[in-house]
């Protein structure tokens, strides 16, 4: 649980994305793409889930990447190499299904881009033809471009302001691609509004769409049900049934509301502790 190294991936306009490499031989050797960990920054901390961005089995190190957006991620961002996380458990959730689907599109938005990287690598290795669409507010906020480009046969960047790549949403590009050609799988990770739009667009074309959900969790081993989501009319626990689900079946409005259940406390604690 010791932090081996720390990298500020991006720090512009008040948006900071940080990578922590943490020593955990058990998790590094047993995890697969799409799985996540639960961690606590300190003894009094919350348990939060973070997707594994990379696992180096030889060195016994796992990489975690997060945007310092909420109270706990801000505390995490203050930790330095040599310090330890209070708690780290994993790997959790089902790995993403990896096989040769054929032609796949990966859609990543914001820090979700970090989460599609291990899946993109694995899908490429399994023989898929990988197309990647990354979305970002502007050029400066874009992360992991080179890494994802290297595993993609087609690669697109969409920015809100047109400062890089094309101006528009990831779904604008997704729609164009789906109109021209047939794809076998779409894998999307990003903010809920983005995943919701991806699912809406791909549904028109009937393309199988997997999304990795970021529901709130406490134990993340199936014991609390905090992360319950409705998928195709059934109640599922994101932690043990997911985190990947059929994007066409997810009740996005419910998820969006449930993820805001503690927004008042979040504001309060951030204010109180001067974050």
């Amino acid at each position, binding site marked *: 649980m010791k932090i081996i190294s720390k990298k500020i991936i991006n720090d512009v306009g008040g948006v900071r994305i940080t990578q922590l490499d943490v020593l955990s031989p058990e998790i590094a050797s047993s995890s697969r793409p799409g799985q996540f960990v639960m961690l606590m920054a300190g003894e009094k901390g919350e348990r939060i889930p973070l997707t594994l961005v990379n696992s180096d089995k030889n060195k016994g190190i796992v990489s975690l990447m997060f945007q310092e957006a909420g109270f706990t991620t801000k505390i995490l961002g203050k930790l330095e190499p040599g310090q330890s996380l209070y708690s780290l458990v994993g790997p959790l959730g089902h790995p993403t299904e990896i096989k040769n689907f054929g032609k796949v599109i990966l859609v990543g938005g914001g820090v979700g881009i970090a989460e599609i990287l291990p899946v993109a690598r694995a899908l490429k290795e399994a023989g898929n033809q990988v197309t990647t669409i990354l979305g970002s507010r502007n050029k400066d906020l874009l992360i992991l471009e080179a890494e994802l480009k290297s595993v993609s046969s087609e690669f697109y960047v969409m920015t809100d302001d047109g400062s890089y790549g094309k101006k528009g949403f990831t779904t604008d590009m997704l729609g164009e691609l789906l109109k021209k050609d047939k794809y076998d799988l779409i894998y999307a990770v990003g903010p809920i509004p983005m995943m919701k739009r991806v699912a809406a667009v791909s549904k028109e074309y009937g393309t199988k769409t997997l999304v990795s959900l970021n529901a709130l969790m406490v134990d993340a081993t199936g014991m*609390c049900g905090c992360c319950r989501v409705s998928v195709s009319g059934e109640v599922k626990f994101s932690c043990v049934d997911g985190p990947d689900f059929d994007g066409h079946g997810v009740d996005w409005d419910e998820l969006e509301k449930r993820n805001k259940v503690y927004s008042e406390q979040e504001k309060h604690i951030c204010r109180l502790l001067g974050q």
Partner: protein
Amino acid sequence: MKKEPVKVKEVPAEIRVGNFEEVVKGYSEEEALQEAARCLQCKNPVCISGCPVEIDIKQFIYHIRQKDYKSAYFKIREKSNFPSICGRVCPAEYQCRKACILTKKGLPFASEDAINIHFLERFAGDYGKNNKLDVKIEKEVNLSKFKVAVVGSGPAGLCCAGELARKGIKVDVFESLHKTGGVLRYGIPPFRLPWDVLDFEIDYLKKLGVNIITNFLVGKAKSVKELFSEGYSAVFLGLGAGVPSFLGIKGENLCNIYSVNEFLTRVNLMSAFKFPEFHTPVNVGKNVLIVGGGNTAMDSARVALRLQKLKGYPLNTTVIYRRTEVEMPARRLEIEHAREEGIKFEFLVQPKEFSGDEKGFVKKLTCLRSKLGEPDSSGRRRPVIIEGSEFDLDCDLCVIAVGLKANQILINATPELKTDKYSDVIVDSETMECSIKDVFAGGDIVGGEGTVIEAMGMAKKAAKAIIDRLSKKGE
């Protein structure tokens, strides 16, 4: 002259609802002596048959009468690894006290006259704790070369670990959470089982040589098979029943509808009642409804009430249960405590549908009234809905406490492990061995939701079978 049972001292309701401190204070020496003196010291004591781990109740009470508290303590320890825990959480009115000769025949639970065995057990246990009485280890040299893996640090896992360690076997306990104790930590609130008591009992095991590895999820980070290949001679599964049941009614995913496990875990394990000093939040309701009639329902009701008090809200927490008070599976003492504290009860009420506001927060629970019909498979009378009895209850926070099912991660990762229709692990009832050789199980993962002492009973059986097997191997 008949002696009256000695009542135990409790913190007055109006004070205790403002904190999470222990409610029951336990017997003083004088009170313990007085209560112990009531014991008839039967020639053929029947109380012992009511104890799942067969504590020699007559004998330990005898020691208390002789003021030989140390002997009382070790008499209990011969059979129970956790006297201070069991003395607090055992549903004695359904177990030893019900079996006590002073209980009138045919009652559903113990008479008030029955000896307060649990309070005496607690007195002896706390005496040992407060006087730091030493650990007794029977090191068996020929077993010390073996190591056993225990999965889960709840009552079953800890008890099995203790039994094995006493024989000198090396035991590693794997716990997925960051703290030990399982349901004793995340489920039972500190006002019933204070953390220092739990820590003491766990430290006792560590002194016996038990090694506990937290933050480790067997089934994900390592498989059962891998444990064997790493040199463990046997594996004990004390996985517990932690999967919450929901009602399956409309609107159940609205915000502020908690499973009992989520609600209690936030408050107990994560100390959400001390937010923001502790960073895990929990919401506080003004109109709180708790659905269910078991111990977890009572615990969550009393937690919700304390949160209201700490927040300065008027106390307004109601338990709704589909049968009547007699059928409630909760300990009688907890029902009594809840009522004293101001928890309200609505019996013969069945939830039908939740509705909420535009932000997705629950606002109302529509219910139906019912009456009792014929007994069902559990022997309790089945609630029958009264047509046209629909009514609404204001509700801005609800806790669903209607049962817990077997934890699934390890089971799903181990297809060779046979389970029954409830997804509980199937075991040989004599040895507690599963369908995989040298893998044993006990506690709620086998029997469904049970008590701490029942889990311990199963864990002891398994430990005995493991010890027997290793002894044969060791020869």
